[in-house]
Structures are given as C-alpha cells and as structure tokens.
C-alpha cells in the first residue's frame, strides 16, 4: 500500500469510527490511528459563519474548495456529525479578575452543564502558577465543585498557562473515536509574570490540533496592542475566535455561542498532494464555492514533519 493509500485507509476507518454508534464500537481501532500530519492525514475542524452570525450547517462536501499552499487538494473525508469534545477550560484566577470571579464561575458552570454526556472537560486555573483543578472528566458534579473552588489572587502568567496547557492536551481520539480538542480561555489577557514568550505559545498552537476560543474580559479597545494581538493570533491560527462580552453579565451568551459552534462544525480530512516531509509550514485555505459572504474558520496550516 502506498503512503497515501495507507493514510486514506486510516482516514476511512477513523471516519467510520466517528459516525458509528457508541454501542457498536467493540471493533478495535486500527493501530496507529491518527488524524495528525504524522500519518499524512490532515484533519480540520471547520466552522462556517453567515454574514448575520449564524452557523451554516447544511453544506455538502462538494460545496468546499480546499487548497494547500495554493494548490487544489481533494477532500478525502467529510463529516457533518457532532464529535465528542475534549475541552480544556483555562480560567484566569489572577488578582486582575477578582471582582468578576463570582459571575465567571456561575457562567462557566452553566456552560459545562450544557455539554453533551460524552464530552469531557479539564479545568485549569492560573495566576502566577498553573493548577489543574480538575482532570479530564465528564462528571458534571466534580467539574462544578472544581470551578467553585477556584479563588483569585496573584499575578497573571498567561503565557505560562497556555504553554503548559498546549503541551498537555487531551488525546485526539478515545477508544478509536476522534474527538474535537478545544481550549476555552477566560482571561483579561494581560500577562504580567510569564517565563515563556508569546512566540513560543503561538508556535505551539500551530503545532497542535486544537481550537482556541478566547473570552477576553476587557473591551477590545482597552486591551494593549500586544495582548490583543496575541489573543487574536492565538484564536485565528487555531480556527477559534476571540469573544468580547459587552459586560461580565454577557458571559452566558458567549458560552452559549461557543457551545453552539462546537455542535455546528464540519470535519474535513485530506491527504496532501505534497509528499515532502521537510518540516516546512503548509498553509491551508478552505472556501465555500461561490459564497464569498460566508466566513470559514479552521486552523491555518500545519508543519509537514515526519
């Protein structure tokens, strides 16, 4: 079997596993199953947004046009089903958000309660240190207690927290079933204490298959250029979005929109026509044919590493 053929076989198996009901998943997953670029299969979690802000969920495979470094690519796998989510809630617990913490806790617990039963959540709090307050679980009670236990105080080591989180993402599949990996960062975005640099964080997000949504707890106009730029790049490179709630009271609606998006995504898989594994950056563009009004979000590229 050729490299591309092998990759396609894995991709097909993964797609089947993704849409097969849980009860029928006794068949073990093929060894080495992965959507990562290490087997030549590139996977994209894709969101399509209409001009009025609605998520567009009724597109077909043939509606999309895929390019890598400007070269057309064939879509090898296309899913419109919901996939289970492995979510990391990354909550700023520094002194700068202390007055907003009670509302943030309540809104976050409400968000967690709306997730699907097979979705899993890890809760990470950070100030000048990074603490996993709840490991990955679908136990809503445990998650609620962990969120309640977060106390604010101290400096903001945002980059440290993002770096540690990106380095320790949940696995991309579980039981042979692919999962969407999502980070939801709730922060005022002002780093005051990190050791790692923003470039290291950005570089890491490019090397990870995870979507980063940022809930920026300050008005866009208030954020310093540097932090606003980082948050914008961070979400943009990963296919996520920066949300600016008008006030802390709007958190519920922001979380609801993120939850809605997670249930409105497509999953696109392809094997690159460029077989070189030279470590170079490959830029991905996905468009909807004839619909320039639709905004398509996905990670912007990947590194072709062996």
């Amino acid at each position, binding site marked *: 079997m050729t490299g591309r053929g092998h990759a396609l076989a894995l991709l097909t198996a993964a797609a089947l596993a993704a849409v097969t009901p849980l009860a029928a998943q006794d068949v073990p997953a093929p060894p080495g199953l992965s959507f990562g670029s290490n087997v030549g299969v590139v996977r994209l979690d894709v969101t399509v947004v209409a001009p009025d802000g609605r998520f567009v969920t009724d597109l077909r495979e043939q509606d999309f046009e895929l390019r890598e470094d400007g070269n057309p690519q064939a879509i090898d796998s296309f899913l419109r089903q919901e996939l289970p989510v492995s979510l990391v809630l990354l909550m700023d617990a520094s002194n700068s958000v202390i007055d907003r913490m009670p509302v943030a806790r309540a809104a976050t617990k409400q968000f967690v309660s709306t997730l699907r039963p097979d979705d899993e959540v890890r809760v990470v709090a950070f100030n000048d240190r990074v603490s996993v307050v709840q490991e990955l679980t679908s136990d809503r009670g445990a998650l609620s207690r962990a969120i309640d236990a977060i106390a604010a105080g101290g*400096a903001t080591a945002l980059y440290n927290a993002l770096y540690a989180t990106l380095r320790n993402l949940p696995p991309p599949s579980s039981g042979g079933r692919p999962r969407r990996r999502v980070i939801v960062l709730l922060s005022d975005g002002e780093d*005051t204490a990190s*050791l790692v640099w923003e470039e*290291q964080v*950005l570089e890491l997000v490019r090397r990870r298959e995870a979507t980063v949504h940022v809930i920026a707890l300050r008005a866009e106009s208030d954020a310093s250029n540097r932090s606003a*730029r980082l948050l914008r790049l961070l979400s943009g490179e990963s296919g996520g979005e920066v949300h600016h709630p008008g006030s802390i009271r709007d958190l519920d609606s922001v979380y609801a929109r993120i939850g809605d998006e997670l249930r409105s995504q497509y999953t696109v898989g392809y094997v690159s026509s460029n077989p070189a594994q030279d*470590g170079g*950056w490959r830029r991905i563009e996905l468009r909807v044919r004839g619909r320039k009004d639709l905004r398509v979000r996905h990670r912007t590229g990947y590194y072709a590493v062996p």
Partner: protein
Amino acid sequence: MGKGRVEVAGWAIGASIACLAGASAARGETGVPADAFYAALHGEPEPLDAALLVAAPGRFVGHAVRTRGRLRMLDANALLFDLTVGTGRARLHLEPEAKAVLAARAPAWDGKAVEVDGLFYRDADGPAGSGYSLRVWRVRPLGAARRLEETAPNEARTVSPGDLVYDTRRQDARPAPSEGQTVSVEDLVYGAGRYDGRLVRVRGSFRGRNRHRDLPEASRRGRGDWVIKDGYFAAWITGHDARGERWDLTSSEDAEGIVDILGVPTTAGGVVRIAARRVDLALDADASSALANPRAGGAFAVSPSLTFAYPVPGEPLRPAGRMILQFNKPLDPRSLESRIRVRYEQDGAATAAPRVLHQYRDRNRALVVTPYPAPPPRTEVVVELLEGIIDVDGRALLPSPGARAPGEAALTAGVVDRVRFRSGP
C-alpha cells in the same frame, strides 16, 4: 541579572565560568551572560548559513539560531532593526541584552555585518514579504564593525540593560518641572511595568548606594546606581549622580533626606529602575509625612515559592539538560549557593548525583539549573531546593503545591521543594 555560581565545582566548570566571565567583560557586559537562560528556554543556537535560512525558513521556525546578516536600522528611537540576509530579511525584536548593546552601538553598526543569536519565528508583523522575525538576545559585530569596536576602546563602556534604553545623556532638553505624572514607588512596584517608558515624578527616602540592602545587590546595573525607598518599596536610580551640597552616597547622615525624582522607570524581575533626568532634594516641610509608613501587609508579606518549571510536564529536557525554575518573588541569589541538589533516577532508584551549575536571573525571577554531566536518555531528573533559600526580603522559600508526590507524607529533611523532569529518548 544575577551572579552565577558553581555549587560543587570541578576545575573544568570553574574554568568555563572564568572564561565566560572574561568574555562577558570583554564585550562590555555586566554579570553572567544571558546565553544560558535563553539556551535553556530555546536550546543552544544552531549555527546556520544565512542562505539556508532564506531558502527554507519554514524549517527553522521555533528554533534558536545563530546566523549572520547585515544590520539595517529602521528607527533609531524605537530601536527597530531588520537583518538582511541576501534577498531575505527578518525583523529583529530585541531582548534587553541586545537592546542595550544596540542602543549604544547602532549608529556605528548600521549597514554592517553582524552575527546574532535568537529565536526564529513566523510573525504576521514582520517585514512585508518576509513574515519572519528573530527574537534576539545577542548581537556581535563582524568585519568592519568589529574593527571599529577594537579601535575605540573607550566606547566599550559598561552597558546596562534597561538603563541605556532611556539614556538620559542623550536628552537634549531638560524637561520642564511640570512634566511627569506623580506616582509612588509602590505604584511602580505594583504596576508591573505599567509606567515603563513614561516620564514620572516619584518621591522617596535617599538610601545611598543601597547601603541598607533595600534591594538585592545583584540587581545593581551600574556602579553609580543608588536607591530611594518609600515604605517597603524601593527602586534603583540610574543615570544621574547624587552629588552636590548635602549629597554623599556613602554618608549615613544623608539617609534621612527626601528626594524628588523626575525620570523614566523600567521594571524587570520585580525590580524597578528609574533613569533619572532630574533629582531634587524635597525641602517642603511635609516631605517626610508624604511618604508611606512601613506596613506589615502587601505583596512583600508573601513568601517566595516556585510557580513554574520549564520544560513543563510531558516535555522532555533538551540534551544539555538545563532546567528553569521560576518563582513568585525575586530571590536573594546569595542564598542559592550550595542549596540546589540534583540527582538522576531510573526506575525509582538514584543512579547519579551530578554537579550543578546554576544562574539566577532577576528579570524573570528565574533560576537556570544545569547538571553536569548531562542526564543520560530516559532519565528522571530530580531537582531539590534546600532550606536556607530566601527572597529579597529575607523570607524563606515555601514548598510549592506539587512538591510532594501523591501519598508522600513529607519531603526529606532539609528539602523545601522538589521538581521532577525527564530527559528525552
């Protein structure tokens, strides 16, 4: 930057340190070179032919590189530079070490060949058509620029990161007395850099050349630097001598004097430095009462503890085995001596107790620990911090939440904190 020390030094390490210190002095830098810190963070810079970097930039993104090119100054005031390499170019973002050097040398080096060490990365704000930048911590002249350097020894004076960025000697006009926002030293310390680069007025007790050790002596950048204090909070004053009537940096009598500073602060590692443009004795009657009384609370009541370790869990050590420990407060670097212990373990059993080289870096409150020899592959590396480590206020280090393993009742006697790392395959 703190001073490096050899804990259980072999002659080889001692000699290396001596060489490093010598090289550092020759370059006109202060303290121990920052190379070890950046190497721990990004790996040793990979010597790279510039043509290769231009031909396949994507391959080197995220790597520490050492490469050569021509320096192009875009904006002298903003210290904005490009490095042109053949037909390619990369924007230079300067770490304080490089910024200090270029602030002093840029006019002479503009257009000249230089060698740089830095992190290569993709950057949306990079030069048009390039999209790549270098985060640079070291710049060295090559060819003509180097010869110029060698023939002008008087220019090779000590440069201090943070000070020369706001070099007051290059200010043509003295600011009017009304300029500058009035802030307290506490505002500057708590502000975490909010006032950096802005002209401010600040009042404090004159404390001479840090005679009372209000600030860690290791954070001094220049011989002439002196200290003001307000309540618990102190700051270095740079670039303006405290001389004249009633001024004596060594006299204890002047320690009660109140001074007004007009200057530009910079903050690094919790230490504030104010590049002074004007210094006046505060002669108004209520000058003393305007200062805060010492308080028992506030940030300085917090004990130091470890907040972050790099590499993070799940990330292997680089081949050299360097680790970085970051703390919530500046430490007293002197207290680290002989209080860092490293051992290697395999399958839970200790296999070696390597020698330890360590360097403390005020700017990030970061301790770089380098075991020697480097750990073999697939080895657990255990770093232990021992009793006696204190912060700049004399408070003892406390254990971090992750110091004890699950189910472990207590750490070994004499050990305050412990961090585990793992070497790569």
